[in-house]
C-alpha cells in the first residue's frame, strides 16, 4: 500500500513536470512550497512556470487523479453490491443519462458563456442521478427485493435507451454532433480548480462511507441470500451504496465526460495483489485508479503533440493489455476475481 502511495505521488509529480514544456522537478517543488508555505521561489526560474504549474498542470493532474480514484471505487462497489465481476457504475445508466443531459445543454446552446461552464456539469449530473433513480424505481416496482439481475437489466435498458436519444439529438442537429461526440470521449482539458474543489471532497466522503460499509460489501459478494442470512440489511445497504456510487460517478462524469475501463479493471487488478477484502481493495483501488488515470492523461497530451488523444481511448488502449497481463500473468494461480 505504501508502495502504491509512492507510485501515486511519483506519477503526479511526473504529470505536473512533463508536457509541451518540461518543468524541472526542483522548480515544481519550489513553486508548491512557495504557494503552501510562503518560501522564496528558486532564483533564475522561468517566469511563466508558476502560472503553468498552478493554473494548468496541477489542477489537471489532481482532477485526473480524483476521477481515476472515484471511478475505481465506484466500480469496486458496484461489482460487490451486484455480485457481478462485470458490473460497473456506467451499467446503471449514470453515463448515458449524464451524456443526454450534456447533449441537451450543448444543443440548446444554453452552454454559452460562463453560465454554461457550470450549467453543463450541473445538468449532466442531474440527468445522471435522475437516470439511476429511474432505474432503481422501475427495478423496485418490478421486483420488491430489487434482485441484482433486475437492477442490471433495467440499467442496461435505460443506458441503451438514453444513448439512442443522445444519438438522435446529434443526428438532428449535426452542427453540435462533434461537440457531443468529444464530450462522450472525456477530457481533462477543462483543467480548472472548481472541478477539483467539488470532486475532491466528494471522493473523500465517498471513501469514508464505503470504508464504513466494507463488511456489508464483503458479505454481499457471496450473494443476496447469504448476506441477509449473515445479518446484512440488504435493501438499505443496496440503495445507499448504489445511490452514493451514482452521485460520485455522476459528479466525475459531469466534469470530465465518459471515461470507461478504469472502473472495470482497477478493482480486478487490485484484488490480484491485495485479496478481495474491501477494507484493502477500496483505498488501494482508489490509489491505483488515480495513478493509472494520471499516467493515461500524461500519455494523452504528450504522445501526439500538439493534438490531444481523447482520454477514453487511452485508458482502453493502455488498460486492456495491462489488464490481460496482470490477470493472466499469475499463471497457475486461481482465476477468481
Amino acid at each position: 500500500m505504501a508502495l502504491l502511495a509512492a507510485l501515486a505521488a511519483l506519477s503526479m509529480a511526473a504529470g505536473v513536470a512533463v508536457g509541451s514544456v518540461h518543468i524541472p522537478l526542483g522548480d515544481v517543488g519550489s513553486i508548491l512550497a512557495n504557494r503552501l508555505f510562503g518560501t522564496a521561489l528558486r532564483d533564475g526560474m522561468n517566469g511563466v512556470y508558476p502560472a503553468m504549474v498552478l493554473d494548468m498542470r496541477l489542477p489537471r493532474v489532481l482532477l485526473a487523479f480524483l476521477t481515476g480514484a472515484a471511478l475505481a471505487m465506484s466500480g469496486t462497489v458496484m461489482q460487490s453490491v451486484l455480485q457481478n465481476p462485470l458490473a460497473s457504475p456506467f451499467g446503471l445508466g449514470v453515463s448515458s443519462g449524464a451524456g443526454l443531459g450534456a447533449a441537451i445543454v450543448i444543443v440548446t446552446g444554453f452552454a454559452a458563456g460562463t453560465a454554461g461552464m457550470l450549467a453543463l456539469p450541473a445538468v449532466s449530473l442531474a440527468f445522471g442521478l435522475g437516470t439511476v433513480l429511474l432505474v432503481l424505481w422501475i427495478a423496485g416496482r418490478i421486483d420488491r427485493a430489487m434482485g441484482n439481475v433486475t437492477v442490471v437489466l433495467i440499467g442496461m435498458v435505460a443506458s441503451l435507451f438514453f444513448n439512442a436519444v443522445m444519438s438522435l439529438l446529434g443526428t438532428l442537429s449535426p452542427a453540435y454532433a462533434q461537440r457531443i461526440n468529444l464530450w462522450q470521449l472525456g477530457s481533462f482539458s477543462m483543467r480548472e480548480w472548481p472541478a477539483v474543489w467539488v470532486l475532491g471532497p466528494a471522493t473523500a466522503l465517498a471513501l469514508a462511507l464505503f470504508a464504513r460499509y466494507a463488511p456489508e460489501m464483503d458479505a454481499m459478494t457471496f450473494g443476496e441470500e447469504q448476506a441477509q442470512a449473515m445479518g446484512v440489511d440488504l435493501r438499505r445497504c443496496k440503495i445507499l451504496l448504489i445511490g452514493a456510487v451514482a452521485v460520485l460517478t455522476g459528479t466525475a462524469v459531469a466534469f470530465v465526460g465518459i471515461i470507461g475501463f478504469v472502473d472495470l479493471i482497477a478493482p480486478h487488478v487490485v484484488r490480484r495483489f491485495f485479496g478481495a477484502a474491501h477494507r484493502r481493495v477500496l483505498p488501494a483501488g482508489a490509489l491505483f485508479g488515480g495513478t493509472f488515470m494520471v499516467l493515461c492523461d500524461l500519455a494523452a497530451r504528450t504522445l501526439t503533440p500538439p493534438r490531444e488523444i481523447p482520454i477514453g481511448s487511452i485508458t482502453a488502449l493502455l488498460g486492456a493489455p495491462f489488464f490481460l497481463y496482470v490477470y493472466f500473468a499469475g499463471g497457475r494461480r486461481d482465476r477468481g476475481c
Partner: protein
Amino acid sequence: MLSAEHLTCGYGGAPVVKDVSFAVSAGERLCILGPNGCGKTTLLRALAGLLPHEGTVTVCGTDAEKLSRRELARRVALMSQLAPVYFSYTVYETVSMGRYARRERRLLDRDSGEDRRAVRESLERTGLWALRDRPVTALSGGQLQRVFLARTFAQDPAVILLDEPTNHLDLKYQVELTEGLKAWTEQGGRCVAGVFHDVNLALGFASRVLVMEDGAVQADCPPRELDRALLNRVYGLDVAGYMRENLRRWEE
C-alpha cells in the same frame, strides 16, 4: 426454539407452502423430507426470514418479523445450497464474516478476541484450520461447503437451518458433517432444522422427521415411527425396498 404457525408462502402465484405448523425444541434435529418441488427449500427460506409469508415464525420466543436482520442473524443461521464464489477471499476471511451480526460497529481493529476465538474454533471443528489462508476460489465444492458450515458455526446462532448441506460432500465428510452438527446441537439451547435430499442420511441424523408433499405436512414424527406407506406414496417409489436392495449389494 423455532416454530411455525399456519405458515403460507410462495413467489407471487399459487402458494408453494400451505398452512404449515410445527415446532422444534432445544436439542432436536428436524429433517424436512419430500420429493423435488414439494416446498422444502421455500419453507426453509421463510423460516430464515428471506421470504414474505402469512402466518408466524417464532424464534427463541420472539416473532421473527419483529426482529431486525442483525438480531435475527444472532439467533438463526442459514447454510444455503452451494453457490459459486466469484471473489477470492481467504477461508479465514470468509468464515470471519459469520461474526458480522455479533460485531459491534468499529471501523478499526474489528475483530475482538471473542471473534477470533469463535472463528478459530469453527475452522478447527470443520477441519479447515490448515486451509485458512487459501482463497475460497481455489477450493473444491466439498471444501467450500465446509467453509460455509464453518461460517454458520462462527455466527454462533441458537438455530441452524440447513439447505441440502451434504450435496457436494464425499461420504466421509457427509458423516463428519452430520456428526459435527449432532455434537453442536448437544451443547444445549440449540437446534437444527434442515432439508435433506438423502433419505438414508436424514433418517440417521434426525431426531424428528417432517414429511412434505405438495406444500403441506404429511407426517411429523420421530424417524422410527415413520409410516413406510406414506414415504412410498410421497416419493413414488418403494423406498424401503430400494434401500434393502442396496444393502444386499454390500452383503454379497
